[in-house]
């Protein structure tokens, strides 16, 4: 009898179910557990209280990213609480035998940048981390999702997690992207259509010719922001692009193992006739450079459009959220978003801090100068990205234009380390969240692609990158 056709997600999930019982969540085996300093101290305390060890230190990788400064990384962290949290991670890793790529290590970086970069992330795996942007790793055809600290403790203690199986959604994007339109624009477009809650309860598989033609790094940007529509994770079927990217990376299988692994990975893509619980399709030709105007990632518009007005919303509850957003942002409904003044530009975060992102920035700023009244943070996602950028001379191109390449970390994405946007100031940012105060108390964030953000750094205003390409 022929097996029932299955989706990529179902194949990966089902092959990791240790036990499935009625009225219980699945007991799901986790292949790789990535940890960082913010969401783990209480979990390690739990292990100590119970007098138990980490079940599989060989499946656990640690890095310090959220608290690290991006300047003078050779010096001790200035802020005491940040310093304590990073030191606590170091101590916990020593005590429990976990490898740590801490500050100063050549592999250090944002947890979702280093996983793929080191070849830890592979197709068909289950990956978790106490961070909602764990969805990034789905770009390789892995089931990867963010968890809370109690769940981190579950995984440390047992290498398993109790989890109800989500439903599946297929988002298909077909067609050719226009000039100056990149993967960040695709995902901001999708979220603007689906809303911040439209993916809740689902795992998304992205398909279609537009997705297929993207590089691995561009695919990671898309999967990274799956959580911003409420989806627990997003994934893309592995293909030749995936394998080319992975080959030779430190934790990728070698020689004979590579061949066996490859044969297995090739069985992962969704079978013909497999059913998703929900399907949505978009046309790439409708996507433009995107920018958000409000205080959640669903409040995005095309750069050529005007900020909506209350009349665009039907329900009073939506209108009140819209009013609160425009009030916080201090922007005028109905006005053009282009030419809105920006004070800061943040190029970085687990969404857009890979080498291709920096190349995009270098491409647009080369031979041009930064606007005088704008402050710019260019923050690579990892030490390896930084090294590569310097090797390619990107640091020099940036310097000539008045930008500075900093050291790796989460930086101004979340207002937790030294890099913050001051209250009331406007920042165009390549990160993933424009929530109130996300980049610092009172900070106002416009989310955009590296091209759009870099173009805006040159003019000091929200600028359509197509004018400069």
């Amino acid at each position, binding site marked *: 009898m022929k097996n029932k056709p299955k989706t990529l997600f179902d194949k990966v999930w089902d092959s990791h179910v240790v036990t499935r019982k009625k009225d219980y969540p699945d007991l799901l085996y986790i292949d790789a557990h990535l940890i960082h300093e913010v969401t783990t101290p209480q979990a390690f305390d739990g292990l100590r209280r119970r007098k138990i060890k980490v079940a599989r230190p060989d499946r656990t990788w640690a890095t310090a990213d959220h608290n690290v400064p991006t300047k003078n990384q050779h010096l001790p962290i200035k802020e005491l609480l940040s310093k304590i*949290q990073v030191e606590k991670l170091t101590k916990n890793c020593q005590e429990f035998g976990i490898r740590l790529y801490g500050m100063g290590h050549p592999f250090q970086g944002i947890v979702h940048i280093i996983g793929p970069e080191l070849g830890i992330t592979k197709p068909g795996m289950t990956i978790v981390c106490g961070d909602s942007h764990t969805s990034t790793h789905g770009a390789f055809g892995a089931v990867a999702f963010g968890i*809370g600290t109690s769940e981190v403790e579950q995984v440390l203690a047992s290498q398993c997690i*109790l989890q109800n199986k989500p439903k599946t959604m297929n988002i298909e994007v077909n067609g050719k992207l226009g000039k100056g339109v990149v993967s960040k624009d695709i995902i901001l477009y999708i979220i603007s259509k689906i809303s911040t*809650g439209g993916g*809740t309860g689902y795992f998304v598989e992205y398909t279609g010719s537009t997705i297929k033609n993207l590089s691995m790094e561009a695919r990671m940007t898309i999967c990274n922001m799956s959580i911003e529509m*409420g989806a627990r994770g997003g994934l893309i079927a592995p293909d030749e692009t995936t394998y080319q990217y992975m080959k030779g990376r430190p934790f990728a299988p070698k020689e004979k193992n590579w061949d066996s692994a490859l044969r297995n990975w090739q069985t992962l893509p969704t079978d013909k006739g497999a059913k998703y619980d929900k399907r949505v399709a978009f046309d790439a030709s409708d996507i433009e450079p995107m920018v958000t105007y409000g205080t959640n990632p669903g409040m995005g518009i095309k750069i050529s459009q005007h900020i909506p007005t209350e009349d665009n919303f039907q329900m009073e509850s939506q209108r009140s959220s819209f009013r609160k957003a425009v009030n916080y942002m201090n922007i005028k409904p109905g006005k053009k978003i282009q030419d809105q003044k920006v004070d800061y530009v943040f190029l970085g975060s687990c969404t857009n801090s890979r080498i291709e992102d920096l190349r995009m920035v270098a491409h647009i700023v080369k031979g041009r100068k930064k606007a005088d009244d704008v402050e710019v943070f260019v923050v690579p996602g990892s030490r390896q990205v930084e090294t590569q950028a310097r090797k390619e001379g990107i640091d020099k191109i940036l310097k000539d234009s008045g930008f500075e390449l900093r050291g790796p970390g989460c930086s101004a994405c979340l207002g937790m380390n030294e890099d913050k946007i001051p209250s009331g100031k406007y920042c165009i940012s390549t990160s993933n969240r424009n*929530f109130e105060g996300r980049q610092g108390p009172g900070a106002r964030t416009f989310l955009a692609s590296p091209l759009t953000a870099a173009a805006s750094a040159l003019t000091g205003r929200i600028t359509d990158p197509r004018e400069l390409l």
Partner: protein
Amino acid sequence: MENIDTDQIIPARFLKAVTREGFDQHLFRDWRFDSNNKPRKDFVLNDKTFKGKILVTRRNFGIGSSREHAAWALKDYGFDAVVSSFFADIFKTNALINQLLPVTVSPDFLKKLFAEIKKNPQTIVNIDIPNQIIEIKNANIKEKFPLDPYRKMCLIKGYDDINYLLNQKFDIIKFEKQRKNDFSI
């Protein structure tokens, strides 16, 4: 308010603690207090008219960051339940693990609940976990709410996930041994 994110519930700058206690001071920090740490009069938690152990909020509560600190802060502050018509996934799990009950009600029930509270801030709301019923006492309006059977058992009997997982050790080791096609490490 719709779409309340966990950065509002507990801003990232307060995530530096290495223990689970004390997050209640920073619950809704930037909505509760202004930049001089003075309480904002227009925020509901600063309004003495409204008191209780149940937080009522509009749809899509708890979006964004996976920080469990959001659930810890609400629980520490004194909330035992959050009522909304829709919750974000990670927040919902984090809340349940911490005995903070997310009660998902119909949009219509939520509307009535807000209307009743507006009419009478002393409105009593009963939440019956075993029968999964939420009731607006004086208005005599009831609704059944969904609750995961495993989580319900944990809430009622005080079970702990880690003990449960440690008891599955035999099955986990068996799974590891029998596994084929594992190229993950």
